[in-house]
């Protein structure tokens, strides 16, 4: 199911075929893509399913993401959101379906995909600066020693500082990263994911462990990067509210299947009740926040640490580590 995107984001208009997203206009879009080779979706899944340990987490997932779109992946704990990201990265295989990332098989697009795994907080004693961590995103996977006099070096240095500036981390990029706060670390890690100018960003709960002001600041940063730099963002979120007004589309995963579409068409009582086959109520608070009530937790024994409550306040959970 793939409802038509109601508000076409304007940034697409200037660089891309204006009819990029809606699948109802598929024939027109595919003609256009044949013409300029550009409007091909950045990510596409059709009939995708994934199995871990003999158990199907989700199946029949269809999704297309265009350049510059901001897509959130939502759902209860243990339902397979991180797994979806890992499948897109090519770290885990899909059991069924066709998956394309930038027109290639997952894992083949290399540095064109940026990744931020679920909650990493660095050891407070780690004596490596933020700028070095960002730098690793640029050339950390190369073998051999960099020649100090090589011409690329200054260019690379410039790029590292440029991207640190972009995420607003210049003030603390030279501090050991273990001593930076959760929000500061998250910004540096976003810079690391961005440093090679990826066309797709896969972010796994980047707002987790941040306090509310930091959540909205980092959400705004990601929204800005997505729309200004025309980067497609797929972001797993535990709470949709901080990113709600930046979003183009959401993917809501339940045990078994998933629904995709604009936030208003997916996050409502009807759709979620249908998806979970149990009464789910979506309440809207006065300030426009959404609260999902009655959503079942996944039946799995989750290794994930946050137990209950979706869309509620985030306590300080920095101390515990993510096991998976």
């Amino acid at each position: 199911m793939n409802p038509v995107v109601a508000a076409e984001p304007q940034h697409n208009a200037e660089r891309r075929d204006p009819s990029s997203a809606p699948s109802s206009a598929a024939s027109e879009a595919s003609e256009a893509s044949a013409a300029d080779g550009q409007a091909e979706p950045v990510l596409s899944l059709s009939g995708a399913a994934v199995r871990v340990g003999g158990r199907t987490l989700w199946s029949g997932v269809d999704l297309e993401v265009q350049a510059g779109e901001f897509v959130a992946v939502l759902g209860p704990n243990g339902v397979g959101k991180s797994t979806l990201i890992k499948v897109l990265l090519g770290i885990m295989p899909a059991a069924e379906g066709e998956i394309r990332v930038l027109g290639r098989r997952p894992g083949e697009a290399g540095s064109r995909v940026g990744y931020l795994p679920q909650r990493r907080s660095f050891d407070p004693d780690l004596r490596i600066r933020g700028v070095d961590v960002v730098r690793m995103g640029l050339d950390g996977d190369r073998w051999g020693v960099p020649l100090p006099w090589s011409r690329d070096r200054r260019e690379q240095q410039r790029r590292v500082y440029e991207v640190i500036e972009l995420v607003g981390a210049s003030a603390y990029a030279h501090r050991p990263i273990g001593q930076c706060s959760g929000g500061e670390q998250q910004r540096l890690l976003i810079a690391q994911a961005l440093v090679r100018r990826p066309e797709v960003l896969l972010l796994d709960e980047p707002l987790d462990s941040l306090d509310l002001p930091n959540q909205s600041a980092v959400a705004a940063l990601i929204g800005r990067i997505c729309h200004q730099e025309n980067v497609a963002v797929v972001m797993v979120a535990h709470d949709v509210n901080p990113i709600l007004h930046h979003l183009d589309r959401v993917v809501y995963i339940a045990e078994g299947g998933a629904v995709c579409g604009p936030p208003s068409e997916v996050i409502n009582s009807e759709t979620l009740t249908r998806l979970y086959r149990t009464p789910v109520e979506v309440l809207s608070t006065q300030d426009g926040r959404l609260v999902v009530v009655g959503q079942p937790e996944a039946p799995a024994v989750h290794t994930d640490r946050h137990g209950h409550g979706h869309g509620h306040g985030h306590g300080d959970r920095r101390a515990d580590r993510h096991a998976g």
Partner: protein
Amino acid sequence: MESPVFSWNPLYDFQLMWSYPFMVNAFRAGAIVAVVAGAVGWFMVLRRQTFAGHTLSVVAFPGAALATLAGFSLSLGYFGFCVAAGLVLALMRRGREPGGSEESAATGVVQAFLLACGYLFMALYKGLLEGPQALLFGSFLGITTGQVATLAVAGLAVLLALAVLGRPLLFASVDPQVAAARGVPVRALSVAFLVLLGVATAEAAQITGALLVFALMVLPAATAQVLTARPGLSLLLTVILGFAVTWAGLVAAFYRPYPLGFFVTSFAFGLFLLAHAARFTARALERRRDALGAAFAGGAA
């Protein structure tokens, strides 16, 4: 050896020490070992694998003891046992995240058993060696030119491997998930690193003895990482510190009738404490300056 007298004239002292071939070999071996142990130790400290390093160093003892007992080359005993132990550790931690704590109990048990085996080999030998002291706590008297050559070849191989693997290894150590997603072979690097750690430990154990390998593997790296958070600079500083404490230890042990391992460890430990004191002072000064600045700004407002 009756202790020569330290003249406080460095030129004269070095000339004197250089006139003994065993001292020349000791200085050469010390330099090689300090550089190799420092470089590998820097990654070990960063990866929080000091327990693995300790295990490998303990394994060096039964290796050397068995070599003595069975009459094969001491170097073979050291390198063979340490590298094999590195591979076993890699096998044991297969399928686990790096830095996992579950294996520590099992590793500890094996470690104790191997230490006991080493002691048994020494007891069985009953030969010229007066006891396990030299193997446990280091000696610099009997280093042959052949041994120096072996150390140099093995050390060069380790340094070359580190030069090739260094950047991805750093990435995989600091940020394994992103590194893996970027195509860095995180698991293979972890195995390769344990092998390098085995070789470096075998080298260091020949100078400081099996129990004091940490003096060269951990202390210089930990000291450097206290002083700076720049990876390149901190690695360089590690190597320089390791080299300095080793040579200073050799000089001290030449003039004073106490074990080399004691001197090297004490010097390294002293520097470690100094580095912490320096950082503490720098932080306190910074805080004070900030407080003064805030007070000044507050007063102006």
